[in-house]
């Protein structure tokens, strides 16, 4: 068969909102505590307890809605999603169904140089469930309700993506955005940012969608791409072998790199949604919207543009430096403190610092070199106190100590020698010791110039000013 297939993907992303307490109780949300130590009577779903909405979760949802230029519902409603599961304490999850807090918005993604607009259908607030623990219980199941009641924003996209690459680009963009906005820590290992993918295929040109499968709980960018590609192949295989794709929920197994069926449509729960009578509708006032809008941070796209124009950075540097709010702030602080050209600041941050952070697997916010100390380094390179090469040595010292660049340069005697008399004296000694090589250079072997530069630098322990050395050498060898 030669059918050309088109892939259709929609994503549901669960972003855990970075609130201090749970969405309907005062219990803490911190990750990694001993099981059930952050489970108050409300988290436990004790008889008689009632939920009280955490205003901060509402504010964070509204901030997100504004950032994707969505309509913020003036009136939204919490509903109960009813199903039984041991880690769902009340037998229902409080979510939003018919009236979500965030309506239609969009996100622009870039794939292979092309910009594409992905629609966001809605985003709604809900509470997370707890965790079932199947290990170490001798065939029984343990329940940890620390996570129960943690606020989530479920962000549902339109089925606008046409490849796994686009899906990943969208997910990355969203990940960057929620972190920029400070509404989610984006920690995927801890499950703060999770993804379900709705995937279907259809013959190219067909208007109707194919039957979709939902792939649950994909927790890394790498797995999203693999899981989708895998599912697409599976669906095409099924159809090309004369079968039919059935609507079902599938689970991605990253160890085996395959998806397998969890439950079919027939087995799907009837969640019996109805408005939660324990909670009042959520009203978002114009005043609150105005307040949050005024406090909205600069968004990634605007920042990128500003970095390119104000700092005259190229695409690559600007993109790296605006990849997170922390990175961008770091750069701007270094420029401000050092008073140096933005180009040199950008080079050293995207070069030496980024590489070291990558090696150590650290976020910029956890950098051992703060902006002040880093600015000290850049300033000394810019004013020729040290060469770039020495700069790399100073960087190592900065990374491993708490001293300032000036202290390091002083202590280690790394200050660049620009005194022409001193340089001349050394050059004279070297020329005298290497007459043969000097002859070769004068005879036209230009490579020999590099030899002399190296010798001089070696003699000066790298501290000679390269420009001065070049100038004097050229003159003496003429």
């Amino acid at each position, binding site marked *: 068969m030669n059918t050309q297939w088109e892939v259709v993907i929609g994503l549901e992303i669960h972003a855990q909102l970075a609130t201090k307490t749970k969405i309907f109780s005062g219990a803490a949300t911190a990750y990694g505590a001993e099981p059930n130590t952050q489970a108050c009577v409300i988290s*436990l779903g004790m*008889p008689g*307890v009632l939920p009280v909405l955490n205003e901060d979760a509402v504010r964070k949802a509204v901030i997100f809605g504004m950032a994707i230029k969505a309509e913020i519902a003036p009136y939204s409603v919490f509903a109960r999603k009813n199903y039984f599961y041991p880690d769902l304490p009340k037998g229902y999850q409080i979510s939003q169904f018919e009236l979500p807090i965030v309506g239609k918005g969009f996100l622009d993604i870039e794939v292979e140089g092309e910009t594409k607009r992905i629609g966001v259908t809605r985003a709604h607030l809900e509470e997370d469930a707890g965790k079932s623990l199947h290990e170490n219980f001798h065939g029984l199941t343990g329940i940890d309700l620390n996570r129960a009641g943690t606020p989530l924003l479920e962000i549902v996209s339109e089925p606008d993506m046409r490849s796994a690459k686009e899906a990943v680009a969208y997910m990355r963009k969203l990940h960057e955005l929620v972190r920029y906005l400070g509404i989610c820590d984006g920690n995927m290992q801890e499950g703060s940012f999770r993804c379900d993918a709705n995937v279907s295929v259809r013959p190219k040109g067909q208007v109707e969608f194919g039957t979709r499968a939902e792939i649950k709980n994909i927790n890394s960018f790498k797995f999203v791409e693999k899981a989708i590609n895998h599912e697409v192949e599976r669906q095409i295989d099924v159809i090309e072998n004369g079968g039919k794709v059935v609507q079902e929920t599938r689970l991605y197994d990253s160890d085996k790199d395959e998806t397998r069926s969890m439950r079919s449509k027939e087995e799907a729960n*009837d969640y*019996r949604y*109805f408005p939660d009578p*324990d*909670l009042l509708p959520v009203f978002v006032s114009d005043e609150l919207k105005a307040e949050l809008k005024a406090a909205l941070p600069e968004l990634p796209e605007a920042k990128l543009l500003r970095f390119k124009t104000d700092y005259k950075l190229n695409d690559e540097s600007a993109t790296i430096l605006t990849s997170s709010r922390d990175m961008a702030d770091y750069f701007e602080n270094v420029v401000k403190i050092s008073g140096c050209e933005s180009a040199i600041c950008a080079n050293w941050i995207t070069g030496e610092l980024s590489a070291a952070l990558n090696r150590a697997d650290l976020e910029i916010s956890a950098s051992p070199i703060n902006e002040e100390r880093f600015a000290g380094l850049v300033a000394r390179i810019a004013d020729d106190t040290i060469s770039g090469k020495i700069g790399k040595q100073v960087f190592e010292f900065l990374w491993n100590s708490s001293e300032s660049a000036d202290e390091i340069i002083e202590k280690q005697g790394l200050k660049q020698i620009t005194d022409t008399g001193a340089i001349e004296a050394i050059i004279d000694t070297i020329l005298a010791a290497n007459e043969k090589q000097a002859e070769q250079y004068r005879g036209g072997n230009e490579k020999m110039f590099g030899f002399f530069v190296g010798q001089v630098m070696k003699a000066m322990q790298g501290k000679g000013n390269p420009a001065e050395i070049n100038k004097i050498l050229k003159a003496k060898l003429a």
Partner: protein
Amino acid sequence: MHNKTISELAQSLRAKEFSSVELTQHFLNRVKQHADLNAFITVTEDLALHAAQAADARIASGNAELLTGIPMAHKDIFCTQDVKTTCGSKMLDNFIAPYNATIVEKLNAVGAVNLGKLNMDEFAMGSSNETSFYGAVKNPWNKNAVSGGSSGGSAAAVAAQLAVCTTGSDTGGSIRQPAAFCGITGIKPTYGRVSRYGMIAYASSLDQGGSMARSAEDCAILLQAMAGFDAKDSTSVDAPVPDYCADLNKPLAGLKIGLPKEFFTADLNADMAATLETAINEYKKLGAEIKEVSMPNLKYAIPAYYVIASAECSSNLSRFDGVRFGYRCENPADLNDLYTRSRGEAFGKEVKRRILMGTYALSAGYYDAYYLKAQQVRRLISEDFKNALNDVDVIFSPVTPTPAFNIGEKLANPIEMYLADIYTIAINLAGLPAMSIPAGLINGLPVGLQVIGNYFDEARLLNVAHAYQNVTDWHKQSPNLG
């Protein structure tokens, strides 16, 4: 001692005629003596005496409130920390609540003495107290008759003077109907007036806690201590609580009383009609004007109620799954077995019936026809009341169609049982406050007059009831307990 009102008892305690410990012991003795009424599920004797001791010290220090040292009891729907809280169900027979309901906290704070936990229909689902896992409560006026429900223990305990006053909860008449059957006074406040935190939910949008006592004045005193905004209950209303005793003696001259023509029909039991007419005549003598009002949608109240209440309960009771607390079946084979047997073995018939009805009503394809329609009807009924209350200050009606029926009489016929709440249910749908006040006896059994008021007009209801109790003595009559 047990014939005194709260104010009289407070005075006696201050005058050291007797101590709270003595008073508490007296009531504990009565509780034991009349254990056959089955009004209590749990008696917390030691805790009560301990609280009484503390109350005596507080009274001695001159720092007491009206309720300090007064023996009362809570319906077993309210969570009491470290004390078994069953909600009348086998499901919670082993449940020791880890926290106090807000109203329990409030009453503890004023130094009221809690004698124990009162019997009730299982999860407050019932109109006769016969659905309780702990057995029916007997009506103190006639031990063959039901106490009414679901706050049957609360009503019987007051009527038999086993407690000075009690808390109750009312979802479709659960304070007013047993109050009427047992010849006591009870008030269901406006929805949102009393915190629901710690009151085990049956139907969240209808449930409301309230007070039960022998007189309107005592109801007012107890309600005063219970009412008020609670940050732990999003549906509680942040409005000041007036002094409910301040207006008790306001003259009723000019009071406009509405009688819904839909309630006062030829179908009304003749004795009941005569009793109510006598009561209404008393009000005329007090200077009230009587007006007919019409509320055409009242006839839909029962079906709308049973859809909404069942839908909410089907979800509210999902947390009783045998996982974290309450009953768990023995040796569950797997998760499904754990759920089905724990719930199947621990829930009673009426609870199961309502869970099934509610689950059905919320199911895909039925939601619009049942739940949504019922909510629309609910709005229409609220509108009816709103219109009527534009013309009159209060609305009068029967509380029940008949006096208390016999134990076992209606248990086999749920529809007939549901109809016992025909006069009370609509008020919960509208969220309005309403009272039941003793208005006479029919064949030796008490019947009540229902007084319905506007939102947050509890003070007026109490005033209307108190004025009647000043000129009649139905509320002072006591059953002969033999």
